[in-house]
C-alpha cells in the first residue's frame, strides 16, 4: 500500500486493518506520534489527514491510503513555529510523552481560531490527556502562540 507522509511517499506492507499509528511508528520509524491508549481516548497520536485532525490509533491503514498525512515530524509554517516556540519558551512539557498530540491539537485550534479564549481552548484540547497535568502551561502556550501569530 502506498502512503504519503509529510510529503514523502512510502510503500508499506501491512494488513489493511492495521491502525495508522503502528504503521507510522513501527514501519516508517516516525515515533513522534505516540501510543497512549489505542482507543481514541487520550489524543497522544493526533495527526492530520488532508489537513484535518485524526487520531492515528483509530485510523486504519486502508483509510489513510491516498491521503496526505502530516505527523509532528512534518509540521511547518507559521502556526507550527509559533506553537513549538511558545511550548519551549514556557517549558510546557514535563515528561513530554503527550506533547506531540498537544502541539498538533494546538495547531489545529489556532489554524481555525487565531485568538481562542480559555473556554475555547478547554473545548478543543480536553480530549488530550496529560498525566503530568501541564494543562495550565498548555493554555498559556496557546495564548503565547496566538500573540506571536497576531504580531
Amino acid at each position, binding site marked *: 500500500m502506498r502512503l504519503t507522509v509529510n510529503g514523502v511517499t512510502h510503500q508499506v506492507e*501491512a*494488513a489493511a486493518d*492495521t*491502525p495508522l499509528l*503502528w504503521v507510522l*511508528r*513501527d*514501519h516508517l*520509524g516516525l*515515533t*513522534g*506520534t*505516540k*501510543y*497512549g*491508549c*489505542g*482507543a481514541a*481516548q*487520550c489524543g*497522544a497520536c493526533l495527526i492530520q489527514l488532508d489537513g484535518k485532525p485524526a487520531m492515528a490509533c483509530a485510523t486504519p491503514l486502508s483509510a489513510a491510503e491516498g491521503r496526505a498525512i502530516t*505527523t*509532528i*515530524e512534518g509540521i511547518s509554517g507559521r502556526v507550527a513555529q509559533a*506553537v*513549538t516556540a511558545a*511550548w*519551549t*519558551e514556557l*517549558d*510546557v*512539557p*514535563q*515528561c*513530554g*510523552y*503527550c*506533547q*506531540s498530540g498537544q*502541539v498538533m491539537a494546538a495547531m489545529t485550534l489556532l489554524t481555525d481560531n487565531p485568538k481562542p479564549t480559555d473556554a475555547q*481552548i*478547554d*473545548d478543543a*484540547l*480536553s*480530549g*488530550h*490527556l*496529560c*498525566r*503530568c*497535568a*501541564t*494543562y*495550565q*502551561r*498548555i*493554555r498559556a502556550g496557546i495564548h503565547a502562540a496566538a500573540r506571536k501569530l497576531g504580531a
Partner: protein
Amino acid sequence: MNRQLPLSRRSFLLTVGAAGAGLTLGFKAQAADPAQPPSPFQAYLRISPDSTVTILSAHMDMGQGIYSGIALLVAEELDLDPAAIAVEGAWGNPKLYGNLAWGGVAQGTGGSTAMKSSFQRYRMAGAAARAMLVEAASQAWRVSPHLVRVEHGMVIGPKGRKASIGPFAEAAAAQPVPAEPRLKSPTEWRLIGKEGFRRLDSAAKSTGRQIYTADLRLPGMLTAVLARPPLFGATVKSFDATAAKKVPGVVEVATTSRGVAVIATDTWTAIKGRQALSVEWDQTHAETRGSAQLWAEYRRLAGESTPAPIAASRGNPDQALKRAVARIDATYEFPYLAHAAMEPLNAVAARTGDMIEVWGGHQMPDLYRALAAKAAGVAPESVRLHVMMTGGGFGRRAVADGDVVVEAVECAKAIGWRAPVKVQWTREDDMTGGRYRPMMLHKVAAGIGLDGQPLGWRHRIVGQSIGAGTPFEKMLVHDGVDHTSVEGVSDSPYAPADFHCDLISPKVGVPVLWWRSVGHTHTAFVTETLIDEMAVLAGKDPLAYRRALLAAHPRHLAVLDLVAAKAGWGEKLPPGRFRGLAVHQSFGSVVAQVAEIVLDGKGGFKVIRVVCAVDCGLAVQPDQIRAQMEGGIGFGLGAALNGRITLTDGRVDQTNFNGYEVLRLDEMPVIEVHIVPSAAPPTGVGEPGVPPIAPAVANALAAATGKRTRTLPLRS
C-alpha cells in the same frame, strides 16, 4: 526521608580518570576501596574536545526535570553555556550514584529526593572540574592560576587570553583532583535560585524528537505483548498457540514467568497474535474478591477491638475522649488508584557480544541490573543498562520485581537472543496490571476540649502494606507497621497529648505500590479534613484554628500565612463560590493550598482556582518548582474528583481512560504557586504538591454544603 545528607564535603574522596580524550570526573565515598580503579562509569561529567559537556545523572528523568536541575548545578559551578550541555542517565556504581537521601547505598529515584541528593554532589563535580581546567590552562599559558577563570564555557586568562574549555579537557584530567574544591558562595550564584534557566528537553519534547523506550528501534528488533493472568495470582495452566502462530508476522509464542509472550515483527501484529492465543489459567491461588467484599472486610477489621500494631501511642485517648465536649466519629474510604502514566510500561532487551543490554525507565538501576542478570542467567557485570527518558512514572517504574524489565529479558532469552525484543504493555495491560495505590480505610474518633482544641484522638488505619514481602520491607516495615501506610497521621503535628494510631495490613492478592506522595495521598485528606471539621465545631476560622495548633511549626505557619495572603483568605467571595484550605508536610517540604470552587446549581461543582505556597528549602530552580506544584495539584485533583480502580470477582473493572477518568484540561483550575524564601538545603517537590489538594477541595465543598464527604473520589 528527612535525614541529613550522610556525606559532608569533607568525607568525599575524589577520583579522576581519563575516558577517551576528555575529562572524566567522579567522586568516591570514603568507604569505597581507594585502590579500586575508576571505571568509565565512575563519572559525573565528561568534557569532550569540542567543549560539549555530558553530565551523567544519578537520577532518572520521568518528567520532573531533574536532568535540567542537575545540569543547572554543574553549570553554576563550571559556568557553562546551557546549550553545550547534554545529560545522560548514569548507572552501575552505587558508590558514585547512590541516593544520598537514602544513605547512599543504592541508586534510585523516588521519594522526591533527587535534588536533595544531588545538590552538593553535582556542585562539587562542577567546582572540581573548574579548578582542574584553571590549573591546566594556567600551565599551558604559564601564568598563575589566580589569573585564570572559567566563564560562560570559556577559559579566560590575562592579556586577553581566551579559549574554549574543550582543548584543556585532557590536560585538566591529568591534574590532581582538589581535595576540597571551592564552591561558589550563594552571593556568587548566577543560576541557583534565579529565574531564566530553561529545561534542556523542552524543544525535543515539543517537536516529537525526544526518544523514549517506546520509540527505540534496533536492527531486527521484535515486539512482544504478553497474555497475563486475568486474575491477580493466577498462573498459566496451558495454552494453544496454533492460531496465534498463523498470524503473519508472529515469530514466536513463549512462556515467561509473567505470562505467555507473543513475539512478532511489530506491535500491532503482536497484539493480533495475542488476540488469537488461547490460554487456560490456573486460578487456584488467585484473588477472587471484588471491591464490595474487600470493603466489607476492611470495615470489619476497622471495628474490631483486637489490638493491632501500633504506629504511635501516648497518653490515654479513651479517657481524654470522655472529657471532650464534642467528638467526631468518622470513617474515610479511599479506592485503589492506577498510575496510568502516558507511556505504558515497556523495556527492550538484547544481547550484544557477551553483554545483555536493557533499555528502560530504570528507576532503580542496581536492583534492575541484578534482576535482569538473574533472568538472563548471567553475572550482573554482564548486564548493561540504558536509562531512558520516561513518559511519566508517578511511582510505577519503581517495582521490587522489575516487572517489564524482567519480561523483556525473558522474551529475548526465549528466542535464543537472536534479536532484540521490546515488551510493550498496552493501555489495557497497564490499567489492569495491578500495582495500585492501596485501598485504604481510616476510622477515627477525635474529641474537642473546652478550649476548642483537639482532646483525645484514636485512629485506626486499614490497608495493604506496600513494603511487606519486598526487598524494601526492612527499610519500611517496623514492628508490623509499614511507615508508608501511616506517614502523615502517626506524625501529625495536630495530634494531641492523648493519641493512638494503629494499623491493620490485610493480605489481599491485588498488587500495590507507591503512587505519587504514597501514604500522604490518604493521610493528608483525613488529617486536613478532620482538623477543618474540628475548626467548624469549635466555631473557629479554619486558618486561625490551624495557626494556633501549629504555633511550634514555623514552616507550616509561613506557608499558611503566604497562601492566605495570596488567596485573599477571609475576603468575601462572589455568590456560589467557596474556599477550602489544607496544609501538609511530606518529603521534607511543607505545602499549603487554598482551593476555590464554584457550585453549578445542579448539585455539581468545579474547582476554578488553587493558590499554593511551598517551602522546599532553597528553591534551586523556581520555575520547575512551580511546574511540579502545578502538576501535582492536577494529578491529585484528578484522583480526588474521579479516580478509582474497582474490582468485580477479582477482575479490574476499568480498562482504559474511558473507565479510569483522569484530569482533563477543562477541569484544570487556574493555579498560582508562591515559594517561601529559604536558605535551608533543598527538599522535595515532585510529590508534596499532591497531598493538600484533595482535602482543600473537600473543605471547600463542606463550606459550601455543610456536609462532609469522607469517601473518595468526591464525585462517586
